[in-house]
């Protein structure tokens, strides 16, 4: 049969148009704008060459730190979500009563609006009125009480912890599906050979989960690099600029009316993400059959 005839290209038209107009075109226009002096303060646009890029990257350690923060956020949350997700997935696979209930509970945070999670935790983590410190004090662990969101050494950790709280269930769910898909015969054979739980995990579960893990990690990395809502709701980049990441920086630029600079950072991210995105998408769309 003729593929061109029975799978006509125009089936993809709606998606292509919507996506191109609202996602790709703004990105490309943004690159154009980053060579201008577009701002809230004047109506005229002038071409300024690489000036904005020079400004953003000229040894101004501020931006470098935002980039590092973004990477740190990505690496840390990805590691914890994947590690804990894997742990819970294995834990909740067998031997736990009501395991579906448990799975359901753990997934719940990723269903809630990130904004709501942020608001809720901003109260829970308030050093004076917050639940966490009150709880620690009530069980005699008062020395652990912290200024979770305002102590410059702790704030970023707290933000990342809330994000891990929010996202682990999601990763766990994907991994559970991966584990369930592994044929039980492998495990049966392994127990006959006398392999213990750890060995089974190491030699069966982990290798069989490779593709699923790759996907979850990629999704996590994508999420981490784009992180915004959770930081916005919890600290808005503070205390000082400790928890500032690329996206909150873009947002701040916009709020100052420095559109050209904001769009410059956006564009750098755009290009960067397209490049690494290409490889990530390759991983995601790998057609390898895992069995």
């Amino acid at each position, binding site marked *: 049969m003729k593929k061109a005839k029975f799978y006509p290209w125009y089936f993809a038209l709606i998606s292509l148009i919507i996506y191109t107009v609202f996602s790709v075109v703004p990105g490309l226009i943004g690159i154009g704008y980053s060579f201008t002096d577009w701002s809230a303060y004047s109506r005229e646009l002038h071409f300024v060459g690489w000036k904005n890029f020079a400004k953003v990257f000229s040894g101004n350690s501020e931006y470098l730190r935002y980039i590092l923060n973004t990477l740190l956020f990505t690496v840390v949350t990805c590691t914890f979500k994947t590690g804990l997700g894997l742990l819970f997935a294995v834990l909740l696979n067998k031997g736990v009563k009501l395991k579906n209930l448990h799975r359901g509970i753990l997934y719940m945070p990723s269903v809630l609006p990130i904004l709501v999670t942020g608001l809720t935790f901003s109260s829970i983590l308030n050093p004076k009125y917050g639940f966490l410190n009150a709880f620690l004090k009530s069980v005699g662990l008062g020395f652990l009480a912290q*200024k979770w969101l305002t102590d410059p050494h702790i704030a970023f950790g707290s933000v990342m912890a809330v994000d891990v709280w929010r996202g682990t269930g999601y990763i766990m769910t994907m991994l559970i599906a991966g584990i369930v898909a592994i044929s039980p015969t492998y495990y049966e054979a392994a127990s006959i050979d006398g392999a213990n739980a750890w060995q089974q995990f190491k030699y069966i579960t982990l290798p069989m989960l490779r593709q699923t893990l790759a996907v979850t990690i990629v999704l996590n990395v994508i999420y981490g690099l784009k992180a915004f809502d959770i930081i916005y709701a919890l600290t808005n980049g503070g205390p000082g600029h400790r928890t500032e990441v690329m996206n909150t920086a873009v947002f701040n630029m916009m709020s100052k009316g420095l559109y050209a600079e904001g769009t410059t950072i956006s564009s750098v991210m755009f290009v960067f993400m397209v490049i690494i995105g290409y490889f990530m998408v390759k991983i995601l769309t790998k057609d390898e059959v895992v069995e």
Partner: protein
Amino acid sequence: MNKKLLAALLCGTAAIGAVSTCALAADTTITLLASQDWVYDAEMELGEKFEEETGIHVDYQIIPADQYYSVLMTKINSGECADIFGGQSGRFDIVTQYNVEENALPLNDEEWVSYYDEYAKAETSVGDNVYGMIYFDTTTDFYMVYNKKLFAEAGIEAVPTTFAEYMEDCQKLMDNGIVPFYECTADGWHHVMWFCEIGGRFEELEPGITDKLNNNEATFADTEMFKTCLEQIKEMADAGYFGDNYQSDEYAGMAYALGSGEYAMTMAKPGTIAEIAEASDGEYTVDDFGMFYIPTLDCQVLNVHPVGPTRFIYSGAEHPDEAKQYLAFLARPENLQYMIDNEPKVENYPFNADQTPAYSEETRAFIDGSESRGTVFQDAIKYLNPQWFDFGQDIIAYLNGDMEAEEVLANVDARRADQAAAAGDEAWS
């Protein structure tokens, strides 16, 4: 309620059919965009009266303070703003920040302009055109508010007149188990006042500094007293005089904090005293609180701040006439009086409409007792007010040891230069 729900459901269903605009029951709805704390409950009550009278519904859109300007500026620049938008005024900023000549409608023909305070008018006008209506009690400013009882208990006899005295008093209060000062940096703006509000003192210490800064002949980073002022803020914070929760504390919690007797001082408008007394559950009355000058750099100058949250009518407003009507309604003498009578934070408005101000004896005495007055820096200095929150965030970084005082000030200069360049200011070219 049921009726409302039904209306909403019907609206929703209609919209499902057409995915079109959904008009509410009221004939016309005007939108008002404002930051938190700019729209008091009493104003919303007036808004209801306004609707009864005219059939025009006012839709108040309140944005948390630290996000307000990003939302406002994006909307203005998108060409899609609310009919009425709030913003700080100031003769420089209304041009450089909001570009009111393009983005707001002139209001010269409005009746209230005839009894609008002259200073207020000057700060909201460009050339001969009035663009905004200050709807905030700018007749008083933020002063140091203190609890007389707690001061007496700590053995403090007179209010401090120098920074050193102030610090001693703080220590006495601390020793007495009282947190000296309620600072609330969580909203991002309150702590900046320690610096900006003492503009009069800056000018006193270095006459001409205002003009020099505005003509780009001096910078913040190169002027020693500015650094000293920041250092004094850090000194207070490091000594624990703000309590150990100040970076999570919010302005909205001020009345409770002082009313509970846990804190002895704060920086607030005189009208706040009534709120504190109310929040104290009978523990204190308004007479238990007094005021003194903001003590950074030994300031003894009364700070004057003719600028405040202002209402502008967006040039692209969908309902400009209704919006004008609403402002006119607010400015009616009886409605100004209504706000003064019903909102403790408002003791007066910058209008000469024969309204009766609600100043307490204490406030009157404090204001009349001042020998010298000076305009606050955010009004006197170009390109300072728009970066208030950035400055605030940098100060926090400085208090936390993440930045040096010099860097904070250099950033202020850099942001001013950016803005000046964008505005085509000749002094910076």
